């Protein structure tokens, strides 16, 4: 039974279990990104303003802004985080989802 369950859970994502394979994937992605960055040499660019004339503008902007979002939201969290029970029973945050509305077991949908 246990083995069967394990087999069942093998699917097209299973290679993710292997850290080596994920590292190779990340490496390929980094090479792809480098290629994208230097792709700016090879096509007809259509800048709208002065800033996006800069070489590799979209790559740089995307990278910096994403980093900014993560760190800025950590700062925001410092101020706004509260316990799940902050609004008490007048909110759904601290309550369990009703058992009868979920179905973890067999489907009996006809």
């Amino acid at each position, binding site marked *: 039974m246990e083995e069967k369950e394990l087999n069942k*859970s093998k699917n097209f994502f299973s290679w993710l279990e292997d850290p080596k394979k994920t590292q190779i994937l990340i490496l390929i992605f980094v090479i792809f990104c480098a290629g994208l960055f230097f792709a700016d040499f090879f096509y007809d660019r259509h800048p709208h303003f002065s800033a996006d004339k800069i070489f590799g503008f979209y790559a740089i902007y995307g990278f910096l802004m*994403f*980093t900014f979002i993560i760190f800025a939201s950590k700062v925001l969290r410092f101020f706004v985080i509260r316990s799940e029970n902050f609004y008490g029973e007048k909110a759904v945050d601290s309550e369990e989802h009703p058992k009868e*509305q979920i179905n973890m077991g067999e489907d009996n949908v006809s």
Partner: protein
Amino acid sequence: MFLNSIPIFLLFFLMMPFSLIMPWKIIRVFLLAIPIVGFYQILNMELGSSYTINFMGLNLELVRFDKLTRIFSLIFCLAAFLGNLYAWHVKDKVQQVASIVYSGAAIGAVFAGDLVTLFFFWEGTAVASVFLIWARRTEGSYYTGMRYLIIQIISGLILLMGTVLHYKETGSIAFIQFELQSFASWLIFISFGIKCAFPLLHNWLQDSYPAATVTGTVILSAFTTKLAVYALARSFPGTEILIYIGAAMTLFPIFFAEIENDLRRVLAYSLNNQLGFMVVGIGIGTEMALNGTASHAFAHILYKALLFMSVGAVLFRTGTSKASELGGLYRTMPLTAIFCLVGAASISAFPLFSGFVTKSLIMDQTANQHYEFIWFVLVFASAGVLSHSGIKVPFFAFFSHDSGLRPREAPKHMLLAMGLTSALCIIIGVAPVLLYDYLPYEVNYKPYTSYHVINQLQLLCFAILSFILIKWFKMLPKEIRSINLDSDIIYRKVLPISLAYLISGLKKIASSIKELRNSSGRISIAILQKLIGSDGSISRIWSTGNMVLWIAIVLSLILILNYLTI
């Protein structure tokens, strides 16, 4: 043909009396059949057709069919079909009837050619949809539903006030383009703004959507806010203030979404951010920008429903949608994971997915109309969309660390609904012409140019690169069981507490003047008699318009007071 002689939305309402006697197994067949019939009927309707009735001296235009109506009513039918398919297992008649009446009211509102009809359906969506929240049947969902209902009803009452004033000023109730000048037009604008979740009026959205049932949230996500987008596109295209409101809407939800633990609330913030793009398009107001808004609304309804469906399936199988409790579900829910990734790629606007071909219409117009600052904000917001909807939702639910949960794959009908929605997202992305043909104006734009594809890939891939690095250094915001304060603190905590203080203060004053009351009682009754007695100044003849206006004002006040005390 018989079908063409009855307005589409009536199809949805005809369901109601039947549903009382029919078993749920038959109702759910109707729930799928009615949107299909509606879709077919809309496709075959003649542009420019109209259906007017005379009601108490007012000419009510129940059906006004043009290209803007067509695109929104088509997507509403599609969303109703997909949402109901996803909810195939639901045996709860309350939810079944609520979802069909809700979608019918939304379609009715899109067809409305005058403000009175619009008001009727506007409130209809509010009343019907709240049952999708209450159907969770917990104390928390009861209070949340109350808050939601009151805000939605207030939006409707403000619309009614605006309509009455507008009628008094112009003698017209036509639902057409308005200049944002008179007080009446501002009221209508704010009413739309509440439903569209403008900044500071937005909290009902993040408060209520995560409180609905598994399937209720999917249905809720499609209609209310996009109805408001439609109303704004109809009445206020080219209103410049909308550009700045929209830009603000794209910005602030990003940060809240990044630190929110409940993935359904993350998606609600992300919905808010996507509405911002549409509102910017309306504010720019050129034909192409409005095309952008309409097409983005169309694509957005699909991929947002898809994301809500996938997180809903996780909730259905694990009992939670909280990032802190989830992770590693790809092992046993691989198909749901793939559908979630399709939704994530679509909302992040990867080439070949639907967001890419619709959002770019708005971005392109922002640049062409020389809104440089706004353009930078929107590009920034695009990176933000990737961060919460593109990465966070699929990553924390299906990948990330192993939570140890091994739930079953979603039920077949959910997989089918998600599969169909995914297919639509990809079809729109691969063959945008299919969607462009149904937009309000002729489309003169090619999304697949080398610079556009490369620039978009650069933006997204380098943002992902940043994510990988931050993850590598273990500096991502942790998933913690928590909530975050937002502006709703004002009406959920600050105002009720101050009101309680005020009331206790007033009680003290009241008791101290109690002694005086006996002697002064007679005098005050006499004053009241003068004002509202049979000859009193206030009770003299009032016009009906005034009465309706005052009733709306008084009702709003009562609602607000109620709000503060629940």
